């Protein structure tokens, strides 16, 4: 070996591939991240969405699938740490950002696959989910940005965690409320503190963007513009990526498995 660092792109690709291979070999994870949001979608639509029908909660459910899959994908950092795989990566001659990017892109790719399956399902089964082909494509790209942002968020939380139980606790007090306090669940013009939080939540812009692409015939008043939705979502993803890269440079006692 003469070169000092390995070429980063194959490293990113390999680590991302590993995420996909691991995820799809654990069937219960695939089911957990896809079936649970679909159940929620059916229940919310039946119980709360009377007039609007199944379309009302569709974009939000797509975001929930992205969120859940991102969570499950980043929980694996804690397992990588505890099972020792991470040590091998930490002593390899690779830049830290390649490790972060591999993990996040791998997780985001899984989330994208699941969300695309759901999108196809809605497109064929719900009349009001009727994007133009171009709109569907835009929705997929926007979901990809959201997936990167949410996987990055999961990475940030998981990096310093020592147990998966800790992650589940954060999930119920932070990540799930973050979903509920978005336009996935609340209307755009909700009142009070909740309404303010909903309008400040970056997830709301992702949901609003998806809603505009997926339900062009049935638009709700007062949604932010396309440009705003894109700017906030892309900004959210970028901020998360930079934060991950920064936080992954810090060592923790958990680097030492013994």
């Amino acid at each position, binding site marked *: *070996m003469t*070169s*000092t*660092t*390995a*070429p980063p792109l*194959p*490293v990113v*690709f*390999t*680590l991302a591939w*590993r995420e996909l*291979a*691991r995820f799809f*070999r*654990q069937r219960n994870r695939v089911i957990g991240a896809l079936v649970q949001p679909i159940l929620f979608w059916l229940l919310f639509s039946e119980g709360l969405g009377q007039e609007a029908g199944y379309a009302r909660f569709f974009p939000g459910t797509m975001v929930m699938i992205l969120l859940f899959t991102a969570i499950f994908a980043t929980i694996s950092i804690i397992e990588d740490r505890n*099972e*020792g*795989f991470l*040590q*091998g*990566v*930490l*002593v*390899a*001659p*690779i830049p830290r950002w390649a490790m972060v990017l591999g993990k996040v892109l791998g997780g985001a790719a899984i989330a994208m696959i699941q969300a695309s399956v759901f999108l196809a399902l809605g497109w064929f089964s719900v009349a009001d989910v009727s994007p133009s082909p171009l709109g569907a494509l835009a929705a997929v790209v926007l979901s990809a940005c959201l997936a990167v942002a949410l996987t990055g968020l999961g990475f940030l939380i998981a990096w310093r965690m020592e147990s998966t139980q800790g992650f589940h606790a954060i999930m119920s007090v932070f990540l799930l409320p973050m979903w509920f306090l978005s336009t996935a669940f609340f209307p755009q013009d909700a009142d009070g503190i909740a309404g303010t939080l909903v309008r400040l939540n970056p997830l709301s812009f992702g949901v609003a963007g998806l809603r505009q692409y997926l339900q062009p015939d049935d638009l709700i008043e007062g949604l932010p513009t396309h440009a705003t939705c894109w700017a906030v979502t892309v900004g959210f993803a970028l901020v998360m990526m930079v934060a991950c890269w920064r936080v992954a440079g810090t*060592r923790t006692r958990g*680097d*030492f*498995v*013994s």
Partner: protein
Amino acid sequence: MPAIRLSDVRYRYGDREAIRGLSLDVTEGEAFVLLGPNGSGKTTLFRLLSTLAPPQEGRFELFGHDLRRDPDAVRSLLGVVFQAPSLDKKLTVAENLLCHGRLYGLAGTELKERVSAMLERVGLADRAKEAVDTLSGGLRRRVELAKGLLHKPRLLLLDEPSTGLDPAARSDLWRYLMRVREEQGVTILATTHLLEEADRADRIAIMHRGELAALDTPANLQASVGGDAITIRTKEPALLAAGINGRWPAAAEVLDGAVRLEQQNGAEWAPRLFESFGEQIDELTIGKPTLEDVFIARTGHRFFGGND
């Protein structure tokens, strides 16, 4: 140029000083063992050398590269076998190696050929497509070793490599390591708390409480103890030791509830001791000095003693 040159290395976890001023050189091509009981600082030193722990104080040079200034150059020369497993259990044996190879810049046909050659060498060619979690502990260690050697490192670091291996597997492992050293000229540094494992090295560094207690070849270390180790079991060791020392300048000590002395001719001492103190002696053994005797002689502590 030495493979490893450490000068005045220090490391602390919070208030606890794990390494207290350690300097040593490891020659290229050498099989070097860091021997010490738990808590002696050897695992900390392993973490520093493997670049897992960032250096705090002291100089670290590996093949002339400064570990602080150029960690990536150092990393590409290292093969690291951790004590804790580092394999992805959900991937197959071959996938683990392919993944590892790419982290070290290998690709394409060269990578595939190396992986199959490596699996052939460690006798796992027929298990290549099996998931790691179906393998026994001993076979997993072999995959770990294959992983550590796949990218042809110049220095192979192993942390307690025979943890969980039976004596036969341990012998196999060392025979294999020595063969790799012959063929590829790789320098080997292993940590161990097993005295019988340290015997196989060219040189042994004995660590005690974060310091170097001794550093030499196994033969020289044993010769340095000077004579036979005589151990006497008795009901009142302090009394007996005082009695012996009152009679001869024998430097008898109490260690772990037994009386211990080192003398050139153990066989001549046995009748002398029985003649004078026969009543008090329950059992008397004479042994050639072992590495444990070296450890005791250098540190004044038993190898597997308490936390005194």
